[in-house]
């Protein structure tokens, strides 16, 4: 059950070009959040912001002190609302609805796994919570992380510090592989697996499409975190749909990204 709360901003930090980390004091949401779920973020005054905006719950914290109090959002300034969010400072109030959606699912922990987290640009925002919730098993994960340029590869050290193997790619070659993150995935999938493989991806639509195709071609299970414009976030406006296909690859019906996703099996959706 989602909570709709007015939460205070507790931190706002610039992580990279136009990329920010926003922390909110929302203990109920922090306690309930699961990797891949999201919140709808707005302002308390409806006349200042009619439609809230969806953001992945990037991290909860502090993890040390018993139950977590805060949720963290990692976001890119994209349009009018994200620009406005970036001007908010600690103490400012936001309206937050969450946790929402169906997040990632993990296979039962009954043997070695090779988790391939594929992130394009701000798509990275969905993965820290996954690594937090993997806990001691974070070493089973590799992060394949691409961006236009090195400065945009925010949080990469955070993953490395937690035992995640990080491989980078940039469009301009300023860090890691000079090329696309899907090149990294293709190379990895060509190598023998360390255990049961699972691909989880978040990023721009063309990247998701390529990731899904690569994984399906090798019959590797693959979960894609989709984005679509949302008005409600809890399944009623029917604004956020994407077409779902049946096993024959034909259109089946429109599914809601907010409640039936945002994470989908790559076989079901064609981004």
């Amino acid at each position, binding site marked *: 059950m989602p909570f709709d709360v007015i939460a205070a901003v507790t931190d706002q930090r610039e992580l990279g070009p136009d990329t920010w980390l926003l922390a909110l004091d929302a203990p109920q949401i922090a306690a309930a959040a699961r990797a891949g779920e999201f919140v709808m973020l707005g302002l308390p005054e409806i006349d200042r912001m*009619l439609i809230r905006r969806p953001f992945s719950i990037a991290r909860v914290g502090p993890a040390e002190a018993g139950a977590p109090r805060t949720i963290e959002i990692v976001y890119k300034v994209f349009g009018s609302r994200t620009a406005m969010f970036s001007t908010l400072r600690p103490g400012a109030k936001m309206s937050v609805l969450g946790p929402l959606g169906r997040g990632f699912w993990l296979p039962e922990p009954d043997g070695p796994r090779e988790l391939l987290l594929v992130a394009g640009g701000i798509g990275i925002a969905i993965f820290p919570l996954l690594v937090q919730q993997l806990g001691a098993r974070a070493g089973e994960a590799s992060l394949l992380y691409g961006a236009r340029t090195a400065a945009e590869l925010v949080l990469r050290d955070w993953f490395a510090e937690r035992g995640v193997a990080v491989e980078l790619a940039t469009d301009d070659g300023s860090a890691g592989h000079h090329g696309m993150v899907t090149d990294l995935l293709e190379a990895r999938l060509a190598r023998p697996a360390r255990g049961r493989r699972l691909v989880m991806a978040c990023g721009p639509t063309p990247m998701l499409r390529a990731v899904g195709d690569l994984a399906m071609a090798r019959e590797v299970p693959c979960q894609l975190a989709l984005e679509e414009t*949302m008005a409600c976030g809890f399944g*009623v*406006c*029917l604004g956020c749909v*994407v077409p779902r296909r049946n096993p024959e690859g034909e259109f089946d019906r429109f599914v809601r990204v907010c409640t039936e996703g945002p994470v989908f099996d790559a076989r079901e959706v064609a981004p």
Partner: protein
Amino acid sequence: MSGGVRTEVDVGRGLVLRNPILTASGTFGYGLEYEPFVDLTALGGIVVKGISPAPRAGNPPPRIVETPSGMLNAIGLQNVGVERFVREKLPALRERGAVVIVNVFGSSEADYVAVVEALEREQGIAAYELNLSCPNVDKGGLAFGRDPDAMRALTRAVRERTGRPLWVKLTPNVTDIAEMARAARDGGADAVSLVNTYVGMVIDVERRRPVLARRTGGLSGPAIRPLAVAAVDQVHRAIDLPIIGIGGITCARDVVEFMLAGARAVQVGTANYNDPAIAQKLVDELVSWCRAHGVGDVNELVGALEE
């Protein structure tokens, strides 16, 4: 009666709502999705998402886009169809004791009649609201809503099949909305609800395409409130029929504004997305407003503009 203020309103054919706050079709799902936020029985009523004879897939995405103080939608009446509605949604709503108004949609007179006939066999429906005003589908809806003769005929066809309260939901995309309200009344409607959305369009100038896959959508939200209030005022002065006011309501002041313009009840739409508890809050806020203003009965507000 609530906090010393009488809140019951009579919206025609003996239907007395416990208070004048309803939720607008398409913005409140089938009601059940809002249970974490709202006590459904605290509302005057719930108008469910438009129901057609068969399930409808709706339009391809993108379906929505925000605009200044509003939003455009082109959902295209995606819905589960009348059969599944009756099987899966209605029983749960009935069990909770919610006042359910079913928004009915079709592409032909026969469609509207078919949905209503299927629903006539069911208990727990307080009224029908004929959606003759959806701008986001190729056939039906708006076509009837813009032609007084078609509206009168369609309303009459449904009227002949039901003794339940019958509301007609009007589109504002017409030259003279009072004429349409008159046609609905002449066809036997017990009330008119207005307004549905205004046809609008946003272009993604980078991609040189309409943002919405369907090109145009319907504008809702506070941006349209002054237009909707004018429409209610116009219909109220032109004909004598209960009016349900709709358009951009976000607070008790807005509710009072629509009632003063002539609405007996109102529907809250887009605001439900921003604040899923708003409909219930508005019931309380309206009562507080009345108390603070010495209004002992919300009906005193209806059409009570000083002339």
